[in-house]
């Protein structure tokens, strides 16, 4: 088994870096770490800020306007703005917990979603749970601002199971990392 030597460090680092360092350098380093690739200078937050300029004056997005904050087994739950796969919340897990029988991948791609309750944007780590056969429940496809595979840090077509014992895809989580402001 070839696998990366990464662990939960990735997620902890995301949070720490997001809080302490300047956004650009922190997330640039994070991106390199998550995908263990040397040269991905730009990250979703930067893209989002660019998009922000284009949408200035508009309140939220179509997704956040229709999103809700009470049912994490529905595709329009606010955190799922960029999720693509089976919701772990429908598979015996939650937005931040894998179902028994599967393992959380330490790697992920990162998005940010607006919480309709406070209109704040939060960083979300879309992490796959790996090892069990595909869950086949609550398949969602929210691809907004998702990037092509040559920008892996924002791509949801990659099986994000690097660092786990198995590349068998089971479901996807939307782990709240922190404020994206």
């Amino acid at each position, binding site marked *: 088994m070839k696998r990366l030597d990464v662990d939960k460090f990735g997620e902890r680092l995301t949070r720490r870096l997001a809080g302490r360092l300047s956004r650009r350098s922190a997330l640039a380093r994070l991106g390199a770490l998550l995908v263990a690739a040397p040269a991905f200078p730009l990250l979703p937050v930067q893209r989002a800020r660019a998009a922000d300029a284009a949408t200035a004056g508009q309140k939220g997005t179509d997704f956040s306007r229709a999103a809700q904050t009470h049912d994490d087994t529905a*595709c329009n739950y606010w955190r799922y703005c960029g999720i693509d796969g089976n919701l772990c919340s429908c598979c015996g897990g939650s937005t931040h917990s894998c*179902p028994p029988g599967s393992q959380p991948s330490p790697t992920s791609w990162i998005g940010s979603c607006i919480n309709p309750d406070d209109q704040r944007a939060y960083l979300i780590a879309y992490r796959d749970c790996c090892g069990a056969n595909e869950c086949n429940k609550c398949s969602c*496809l929210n691809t907004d601002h998702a990037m092509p595979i040559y920008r892996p840090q924002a791509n949801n077509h990659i099986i994000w199971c690097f660092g786990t014992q198995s590349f068998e895809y089971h479901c996807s989580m939307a782990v709240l990392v922190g404020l994206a402001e």
Partner: protein
Amino acid sequence: MKRIAHEAVKSAARIAALSMVIGGGLAAAAWAAQPGGAPPPVLQSETAGVTPFQGLTAHDLTYSGLDGVTTGGVRIIDGDTARTVATVFSSQYANFAWAPDHRTLYISETYWTLGNRGTREDVLSIYGGPTLSNEGEIALPGRLISDPKTHTFALSADGRYGYDYSFQPAPAVSVIDLRARKVAASVEIPGCGLVFPFGKRGFASLCADGSLAVADVNAQGKYAVHRTKRFFDVMTDPVMDESVSDPHSGLALFTTYDGWVHPVHLADTPRFDKPWSIEKAAGLSPATSHVGQITWRPGGQVPFAYEPSRHRLFALMHEGPPWSFEKPGSEIWVLDARSHRLLHRWDVPESAYLVAVTQDEHPLLFALSEEWLWVMDPDTGAVLRATKIVTPGLARVRGGQ
């Protein structure tokens, strides 16, 4: 992970939300709209983990998919909520059983090193612990590769031994010492198949001539196999593979295509009760194999379930001709296996391929069709809840066969 989402899902999931349209004015407007007016607290960050597995509950159903039609995997559904609890990886053509601790899952399965080619590996995989993770494998000498059949793998009632039916090159049962984690014996059962455990270490198999093979073991752990009398006519009305048996009492209800139930008390010297007819219990003429006789018959992928405490036999029934024993059931018949009386006939919302019943004080009845699982009240036939499933192959409940 890319999925083709269905329309209902897609409509809820329109457009960009990564954009961060955050500003003081906007945020203030949003807060002002909150009841109470105070800004909600900033949400706290989370750590990802695995939901702990609490053990199989009395109302959990464990099922696997129909191979070829769907992918592998052993899936646990909570009957009280119809929600998925967990999934454990398996190969195609796997069988599985829970240890009496309701926490350890054994999966009998086969792999090739290169998918469909390379080196074949037959293993009994062990899953358990708080995350239901892999705890190793026991190498098996061989396994039958077939569509899912409940009785190709079973544990002794005390969970000490596993029995795995093998077919290549000759019919045999691998007796697995689950404590020592090794195959203790390979018992040949020429002309017979499947495994129905009884007692501490014994098992019986159904034979192609209508008899049973009984394997008992002496103090030295040596198995000896002998045949019983022929108790059914395999030519015209064979006993179904998917007959039910209670591993605790050793009672097997061997049921034929035409609906004749042969109760057999499995033991070193089995006791055969008089057969009775499901159709007669319903006031009908017994079904026969006469061409053109359309009548109620049992059928499906797993057509029977048994509740030992109340002696209730649940049978998936359909109207059809002889040899239609794989046709799914439009009704579930509830029969008293002691008095041979029909207690109820319940409709199912869609023809069902599998039936299962929990083994507790307040049992739930499960009916599984090609795409749906219905949780039913076995006493009233009411459909309590439902969930979508993969096309089912096998199902097990806590404490069941």
